[in-house]
C-alpha cells in the first residue's frame, strides 16, 4: 500500500467529521420542527450559523482567565481527536493504534473537564449551575458507558475499535444480534442521550435558566469561541452516533481500501447516522425533559442493562 494512503484516509475522515456534524444537528432540528408542525429552518442552517459566529466579534468577560479562551480550543481538539480514533466509513482506520475505546472515552472526558472549568470561569451563577449539573451527569454516565463498552469488547474479544467493528462487519447474522449486544446497545443509547445533552436529560434548544445544562456553560461565549464550542458539541454527537452505528450495525462499512468498498462505506455511513439522527429527533419530540434528580434513575437503568449484557454474555456462552 502506498505510504500516502493512510494520510489521505485520515484527512478524509477529518473532513467528514467536521463537515457532517452540523448536518446531523440540522437533521435533528428539522425532524423536531416537522413533528411540531413547523416548517423549520433548512437542513444546512447550522453551517450558516457557524460561519456567522466565526465572523462576529466575540465579547469576553473581563473577569475570566486564559482558561476561558483556551477551553473552546481544547474542547474542540479533544472531540476531533476522539473522532479520529474510531472507524467511520472504513473498519481499519489508520489512527486506531493511538487509542482504544477507553482512550476515546477519556479524550471526551478531557473536553468535559475544560467545559466545566469554562462554565465556572466567567463567575456568573448560570455557568456554575451548568457546570455543577454537567458534573453529575458525566459522573453517572461514566460507569454505564464503561460497562456497556466492556460488554461489547468481550463479545468482540478486543477493546480496539477497528477490530470490534471489523469483526462485527464480517459476521453473517448481524441481524440476529445476541441479547448481550442488544442490551449493551440500549445502555449505550441512553448514555449517548445523556453525554450529548439531548432530551430527556438536557434540552439543547432552551435558554431557560431552570433547565439548561450545556447551554448554561456556554452562556458567556460568543463569536468564534461559541462557534468552536457548538461545533465541538455537534462533533461529539456525531462521534457517539458513529460509535453506535458502526459497532451495532456495521452494514456496508468498507473492510478494505478498494475504491468501490470505500464509496459504499461513505454512502452507507451517511445514511446510517442520518437515520439515527431522525430517531433522536423523534425521541426528543416524544419525551419531556426529566427533572435533574430523575436522571440518576435513567442512567441507573442504563447501568443495569449494561451489567445484564455482561451477565448474558458469560452465561449464554458458558
Amino acid at each position, binding site marked *: 500500500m502506498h505510504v500516502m494512503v493512510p494520510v489521505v484516509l485520515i484527512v478524509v475522515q477529518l473532513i467528514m467529521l467536521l463537515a457532517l456534524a452540523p448536518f446531523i444537528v440540522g437533521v435533528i432540528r428539522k425532524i423536531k420542527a416537522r413533528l411540531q408542525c413547523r416548517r423549520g429552518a433548512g437542513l444546512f442552517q447550522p453551517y450558516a450559523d457557524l*460561519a456567522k459566529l*466565526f*465572523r*462576529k*466579534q*466575540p*465579547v*469576553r*468577560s*473581563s*473577569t475570566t*482567565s486564559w*482558561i476561558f479562551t483556551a477551553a473552546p*480550543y481544547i474542547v474542540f*481538539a479533544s472531540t*476531533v*481527536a476522539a473522532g479520529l480514533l474510531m472507524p467511520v466509513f472504513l473498519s481499519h482506520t489508520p*489512527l486506531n*493504534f*493511538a*487509542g*482504544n475505546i*477507553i*482512550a476515546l472515552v*477519556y*479524550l471526551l*472526558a*478531557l473536553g468535559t*473537564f475544560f467545559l*466545566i*472549568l469554562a462554565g*465556572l*470561569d*466567567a*463567575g*456568573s*451563577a448560570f455557568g*456554575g449551575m451548568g*457546570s*455543577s449539573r454537567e*458534573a*453529575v451527569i*458525566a*459522573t*453517572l*454516565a*461514566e*460507569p454505564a*458507558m*464503561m460497562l456497556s463498552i466492556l460488554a461489547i469488547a*468481550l463479545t468482540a474479544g*478486543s*477493546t*480496539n475499535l477497528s*477490530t470490534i467493528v471489523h469483526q462485527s462487519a464480517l459476521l453473517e447474522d448481524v441481524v440476529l444480534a445476541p441479547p448481550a449486544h442488544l442490551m449493551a446497545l440500549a445502555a449505550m443509547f441512553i448514555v449517548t442521550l445523556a453525554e450529548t445533552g439531548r432530551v430527556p436529560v438536557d434540552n439543547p434548544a432552551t435558554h431557560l435558566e431552570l433547565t439548561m445544562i450545556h447551554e448554561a456553560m456556554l452562556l*458567556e461565549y460568543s463569536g*468564534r469561541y461559541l462557534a*468552536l464550542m457548538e461545533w465541538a458539541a455537534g462533533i461529539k454527537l456525531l462521534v457517539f452516533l458513529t460509535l453506535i452505528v458502526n459497532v451495532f450495525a456495521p452494514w456496508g462499512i468498507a473492510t478494505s481500501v478498494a475504491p468501490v468498498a470505500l464509496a459504499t462505506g461513505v454512502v452507507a455511513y451517511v445514511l446510517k447516522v442520518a437515520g439515527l439522527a431522525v430517531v433522536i429527533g423523534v425521541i426528543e419530540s416524544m419525551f419531556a425533559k426529566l427533572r435533574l434528580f430523575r436522571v440518576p434513575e435513567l442512567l441507573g437503568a442504563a447501568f443495569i442493562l449494561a451489567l445484564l449484557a455482561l*451477565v448474558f454474555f*458469560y452465561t449464554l456462552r458458558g
Partner: protein
Amino acid sequence: MTALLTVLLACYLLGGLLPLCTSRPQLQNTLAHGGAAAGGLTGIVLGLVGLFAAQPLTLSVPSNIPFLTFALRLDPLAAFFVLTISLAGLAASIYAQGYVSEYADRASIGVVGSLLNGFVLSMTLVVLADNGFFFLILWEVMSLLSYVLVVTEHERPGVREAGLFYLIMTHVGTAFIILTFVIFSQEAGSFSFDDFRHPDQRLPDGLRSIAFFTALIGFGAKAGIVPLHVWLPYAHPAAPAHISALMSGVMIKTAVYALIRVYFDFLEGVFPWWWGFTVLSIGAVSALLGVMYALMEHDLKSLLAFHSVENIGIILLGIGAGMIFHAYGLHELAALGLLAGLYHTINHAMFKALLFLGAGAVQFATHTRDIEEYGGLLRRMPWTGLFFLVGAVSIAALPPTNGFVSEWLVFQSLILSVQLPTLLLKLMLPIAAAILALTGALALVCFAKAFGMAFLAQPRSGHARQAVEVPVSMRVGMGILAGSCVLLGLAPMLVVPLLDRVTGPLTGVAISDKVLALDGWVVAPVTVEFSSISTPVLAALLVGAGLLGLLIARRLGKGVQARYTRTWGCGLPLTPRMEYTATGFVQPIKQVFETVYQPTVKLEREFLEQSKYFLRHQRVEFHTEPLFETYLYRPVVRKLLAVAERLRVIQVGSLHLYLTYIFVTLVLLLLWAG
C-alpha cells in the same frame, strides 16, 4: 553502592545535624534543605543504579543485639521506591527553601529542616532494609518523625488531636507488622529477610493466610486503605505542605512496597486467588469511598488527603488483579497488573506531591485552606495555577498525562479477566472496572471543583484578592514535579522497561517487549489488535486539532478583535457572591449519593419580634456523616473506655499494692516457664 550510600547518608545526616549547630535561620534553611536536596539527587542516582544492576547489591553490618543486623539490599523493587522517594524528596526540599517563612514564626526552621532530612532518610532506608528487626526500627523512626512533623504547628486547633490519632493508628499497624515478622521468623529461625524468602522455610498454609491478613492490616493502616484510612485525612493536612506532600506522595507508598515485598518475595507469589480478590475488593472500595469523601471536603489539603485513599485504591486494584492472575499461573498478566500498580505508584507520588505543594503555595499566598475563600488566583498566581492544573489533569487521568497511562493499564488488566477460568471473577473484575470508571469521573469532578473554585472567576475573599505569586524556589519545586508528570505520561517507552525490571524478578517473566509495540511508541499490553494507546500520538493529535481550530477561527474571523466587558449579572453589578460555591457545586452529587453521605441540614432562624415574616438572623449548617468513624470507630472506642473504667479498680495509687502485682506476675511467669 557503598560509595553512593555513604554519600546519601552523609548528605542527609549533615543536612539533619548542621542546622542545629547554628542559630541563624537563613543559614539553617540553606543547610537543611541543601542537604536534603543533595541527598535526593544521590538517591535518584542510587535508584537508577539499582534498577540497572544485574544482581541485587547488599551491605551488612552485624550488631550485638540478637536477631538484629544492619542489612541493606538494593534489588530492583527497592531501587524503584528509592527513586520515587528521592525524586519527591528533591522537589520538596527545593520548595521548602521558600516555603519555610509560612511557619517560621511558629516553629524553628532548623528543627523542621533537620526532621525533614531524617524523615526522607528513614523512608529511603525502610525500602532498603533487609532485616526484619532493622526494618521495624526504621519503620518506627519514620512514623515517629512524621508524627513530630505533623504536630509542627501544634498550637493550631485540631493539630494535636490529628497527631494523636495518627500515632495510635500507626502503632496499631506496627503491632500487626511485628506479628507478621514474628510468624515468618518462627519458620526461618531469624529475622533476616534472606531467611524469610528462603524456599526451604515455607510456612504451613494456615500461617501463610494469617501472615497475609496481618500484613494487609499492618501495612494497610499506613497506606490508608478503607476502613483503616480514618486518620489520614486528619494527619496529612496538618503538617507543613512539603511534609504533607511527602507523607501523601511517598510515605504511604512504603506500605505498598512492603505489601509487594511480603506477597511476591517472602511468600514467593504462591497464594490462592482469594488473596488477590481481597486486595482487589479493598482497592475498589478505597478508590470509590476515597474520592467520594474528597468531593465533600472544602479544605484543600484534606481534599487531597482523601484522594490519597482513592489512589492507593487504584494501585491496589492493579496489584490485586496481578495477584489473581498470578494465582492462576497467568504470569504475563500478573506482571501487567503489577506493572500497572507500580506505574500508578510513581505517578501518584509525582502528582500528589505536586498538588500538595500547590496547595501549600496557595496557602502561602492567602493564609487559608478553605476553598470557599479562594477564587481568581490564576490571574494572580499564573505559575502556581499552571502547575496545579497539570497535577489536576494528571490525577483526573485525562489523556495524555501520566495518570491516564497508568489508569488505562489498570483497566486493561481488569478487562483481561476474560482469560480467567471462574465465572465469579470474570464478572467481578469488569464490575471493578466500572467502579474505577465511576471513581475516575468523580475525581474529574473533584478537581474541576478544586481548580475551578480556587483559581477561576473572581476572588471570594480579601485573602484571595491580595494573593501574589510565590517565590522562585517554590515554583522550581513544583516545576520539577510537573515536568515529571508530563514526562511519565508522554514517555511510557522509557518507564515501562524500567518497571519491567522490577516486576520481572517478582513474577518470573519479562513483558516489556510485549507491552510496548512499534518501537515503544505504542503501549499495547496484549496486541495492537486487542488494545493500544500512544500518548505521544494523542498529544500530537490534540495539538494538531487545536491548531486546526485556531487556524479556522483566524481565517474566518480575520481582523476581528475581541471586546472586553463584565460578565452579565442580570442587570446587577457582578459580585463574587453570585458565583457558585464549592458547596453548591457538589450539592447535586451529595443528593444523588445520599446513602453514602447521609447529609443533614441544621437551620437556625431568628425572626423580628414584630413579624414572623422578617428574618433577623439565619444560620445554616451542612453536615455529612463520616460512616466509618460513627459506626465503626466510635463504638470501639466507647467499649475500650468502658473496659478501662472497670479496670480502674485495680489501680488505687498504693505503691505496695503495685509491688504485689509485680510479684504475683513474676511468680506466675516463673510457674508458666517451669
